[in-house]
């Protein structure tokens, strides 16, 4: 086999050299800072080996924000290339690599970890648990995601990036048409991060079903936790499909199999089918938690119970189910018969019904509420009209006959950016701002936060609204340049919007840096006057979350305890009731095992099978060690609890 690995390091592009330099400088800077301040041991003990869901959540979110920067730079490069006709800022190959990595990173390495980070931070606290069901697996999930993200990002300077689109359609992504190692990076890093996501899905499914506080029935579960339960169920359904599809294509590329090739009775369209069997549920995996966040935020800042809680829950369950049976709408034009296209057309339109229910319930929650315009609330308010535009254009795209016109045009690009950005990204940002004081113990600056909002949201509208009209005018996606001067005006406007979004993002990050030093410290643990259990914990949150697990009598328990001044362990702790708390031990093995995964992936990308095999044996050894490990965790003594909770103890 001729593997076409021309060179190990990517050469010949000044931008890549600049990136090389930046990577080296950053790495050196990090090493210097850690050594200078003698923080290596602290890093290892407190972060790299932790199984605490709150710290894992924070690491997930840090990784997601980093990846958002990388994906955003990709986006800006694309907009720079497409601003005016016939540019030669990027060559076609480079452009292909950039839109591929933009899509893959933004979906799998930005949206997913952001969502998973938020669920890690909030869900165990919301349901009154001390950790997730499988803390060790949770650490393994994070580290294998992180190494997969690193593997994918490495492709950009070593070996070459994938260039077949984030959907990696066969036969384009097959070795005959796409030699080199780029596509291998795609396959192997997605395989590793897919495993991580599947583990997270199982973990949270079990956590929510089994670890709720006593008295918390399913219909007293906070709505964000409900959204995560539905999301986990979809993950458990969808991610095995991705694993198999990726494995088949990996066989095609590495071992010369013929699952999706044009020759040897391969079936290229089966890749599209399997990919979207996973891919459509995937986009609902990233939107449902955002719906959960908006429900929490709108309810908290309207000072009202969520309007139509039951309808909200059932609409999420219904959306979850429908998400599994609409995948063909991604390839209406592939040539399936009218029976198939009609069925999937109708099932796709049906999703608008539960989504509409949710939109009106959010409006109903705000109706006659006392609305506080905090930053998380602003993002939630912006979400409703923007997402409605995205949803309605989605119904237009759901008409199979009309889709022959819209397919692969900028109309579609505008549609999915409208739903993904105003849904998922706004949701992630709203959730981050909302739970920020819980995560770090200080508030973000509201003024800078509003600047970020007023740069990002109009920027988003200016960037993507023109794309609807570009698409209707015939501009297709995935072209590296255009020569039709009619499209220049709208493209220039879109690029201006993209620049505004970039500035807005930078202001958001600046806000975090500023607030870390000067932000208002939160002493109460309940800065927003919240409704759910996570606000009942002190700040900083003790690593066991709750010294005494409360008994739950109704939805929004904490709110009613505060309103009616009821005695509750959520407000003060009777000393006589304190008992030692059992907690899981930290472990360095997930970290080691994930880097072994990284080596497996990296070696397989370059067809160095003996190294991959050795590292894989290492992974199996780690699993074996875990199987025979007797790890009963440890107990937190009553003295330590008393020290930690001295402000809340009631000497009874």
């Amino acid at each position, binding site marked *: 086999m001729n593997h076409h690995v021309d060179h190990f390091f990517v050469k010949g592009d000044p931008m890549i050299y600049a990136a090389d330099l930046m990577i080296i400088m950053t790495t050196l800077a990090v090493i210097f800072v850690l050594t200078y301040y003698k923080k290596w041991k602290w890093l290892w003990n407190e972060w790299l080996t932790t199984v605490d869901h709150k710290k894992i959540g924070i690491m997930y979110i840090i990784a997601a924000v980093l990846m958002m920067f990388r994906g955003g730079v990709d986006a800006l490069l694309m907009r720079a290339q497409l601003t005016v006709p016939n540019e030669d800022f990027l060559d076609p190959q480079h452009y292909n690599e950039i839109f591929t990595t933009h899509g893959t990173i933004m979906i799998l390495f930005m949206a997913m970890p952001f969502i998973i980070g938020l669920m890690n931070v909030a869900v165990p606290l919301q349901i009154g648990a*001390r*950790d997730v*069901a499988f*803390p060790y697996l949770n650490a393994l999930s994070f580290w294998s995601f992180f190494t997969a993200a690193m593997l994918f990002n490495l492709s950009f300077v070593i070996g070459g990036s994938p260039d077949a689109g984030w959907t990696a359609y066969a036969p384009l992504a097959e070795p005959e048409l796409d030699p080199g190692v780029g596509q291998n990076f795609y396959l192997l890093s997605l395989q590793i991060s897919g495993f991580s996501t599947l583990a997270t899905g199982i973990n949270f499914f079990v956590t929510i079903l089994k*670890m709720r506080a006593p008295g918390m029935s399913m219909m007293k579960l906070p709505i964000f936790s409900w959204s995560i339960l539905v999301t986990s169920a979809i993950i*458990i*359904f969808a991610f095995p*499909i991705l694993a198999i599809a990726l494995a088949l294509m990996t066989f095609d590329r590495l071992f010369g199999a013929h699952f999706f090739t044009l020759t040897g*009775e391969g*079936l290229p*369209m*089966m890749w599209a*089918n*399997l990919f979207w*069997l996973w891919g459509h549920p995937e986009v609902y995996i990233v939107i449902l938690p955002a719906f959960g966040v908006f429900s929490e935020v709108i309810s908290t800042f309207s000072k009202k119970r969520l309007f139509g809680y039951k309808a909200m829950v059932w609409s999420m369950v219904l959306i979850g189910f429908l998400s*599994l*049976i609409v995948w*063909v709408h991604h390839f209406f034009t592939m*040539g*399936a*018969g009218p029976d*198939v296209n009609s069925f999937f057309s109708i099932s796709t339109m049906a999703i608008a019904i539960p989504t509409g229910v949710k939109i009106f319930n959010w409006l109903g929650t705000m109706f006659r509420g006392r609305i506080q315009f905090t930053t998380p609330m602003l993002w939630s308010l912006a979400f409703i009209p923007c997402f409605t535009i995205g949803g309605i254009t989605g119904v237009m795209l759901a008409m199979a006959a009309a889709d022959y016109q819209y397919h692969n045009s900028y109309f579609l690009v505008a549609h999915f950016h409208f739903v993904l950005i105003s849904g998922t990204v706004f949701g992630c940002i709203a959730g981050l701002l909302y739970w920020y004081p819980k995560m770090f113990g200080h508030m973000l600056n509201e003024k800078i936060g509003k600047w970020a909002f007023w740069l990002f949201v109009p920027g988003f509208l200016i960037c993507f609204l023109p794309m609807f009209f570009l698409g209707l005018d015939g501009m297709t996606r995935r072209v590296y340049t255009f020569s039709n001067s009619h499209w220049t005006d709208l493209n220039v406007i879109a690029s201006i919007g993209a620049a505004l979004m970039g500035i807005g993002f930078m202001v958001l990050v600046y806000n975090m840096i500023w607030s870390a030093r000067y932000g208002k410290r939160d002493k109460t643990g309940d800065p927003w006057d919240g409704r759910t259990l996570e606000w009942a914990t002190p700040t900083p949150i003790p690593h066991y979350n709750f010294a005494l697990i409360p008994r739950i009598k109704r939805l929004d328990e904490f709110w009613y305890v505060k309103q009616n001044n009821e005695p509750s362990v959520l407000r003060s702790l009777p000393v006589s009731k304190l008992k030692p708390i*059992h907690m*899981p031990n930290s472990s360095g093995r997930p970290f080691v095992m994930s880097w072994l995964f990284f080596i497996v992936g990296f070696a397989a990308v370059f067809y160095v099978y003996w190294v991959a095999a050795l590292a894989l044996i290492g992974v199996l050894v780690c699993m074996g060690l875990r*199987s*025979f490990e*007797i*790890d*009963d*965790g440890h107990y937190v003594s009553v003295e330590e609890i008393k020290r930690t909770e001295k402000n809340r103890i009631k000497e009874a």
Partner: protein
Amino acid sequence: MSEQNQSRNSDGRDFPWQHVIGFILSIVLTLLSLWIAFKTSLSTGMIMAIIIGFAFLQAAVQLFMFMHVTESEDGRFQMWNMVHAFIAFVIIIVGSIWVMSFGMSYMNHM
């Protein structure tokens, strides 16, 4: 893990025979399927039928050896697991075959 939920044996001496046997059985079934597909001259339909039979055996091995299908405290969870598996089967397998039926003309000789 909470206090009342320590499922791990503390003596750590019991060897996981079930898992090892299940693992070996899975590999044997897989290799047998490969052998039947590559080394026998049965008709395509016959090979398919045998492999599908093996697939069900494989699923049974997974359920009994790894997933402790007989060990849960009540049958409710297992019932929901089966319902979920059935729904997944219908959507993924039946759905894919239905969707792809237009592209499989070369399989008409079956």
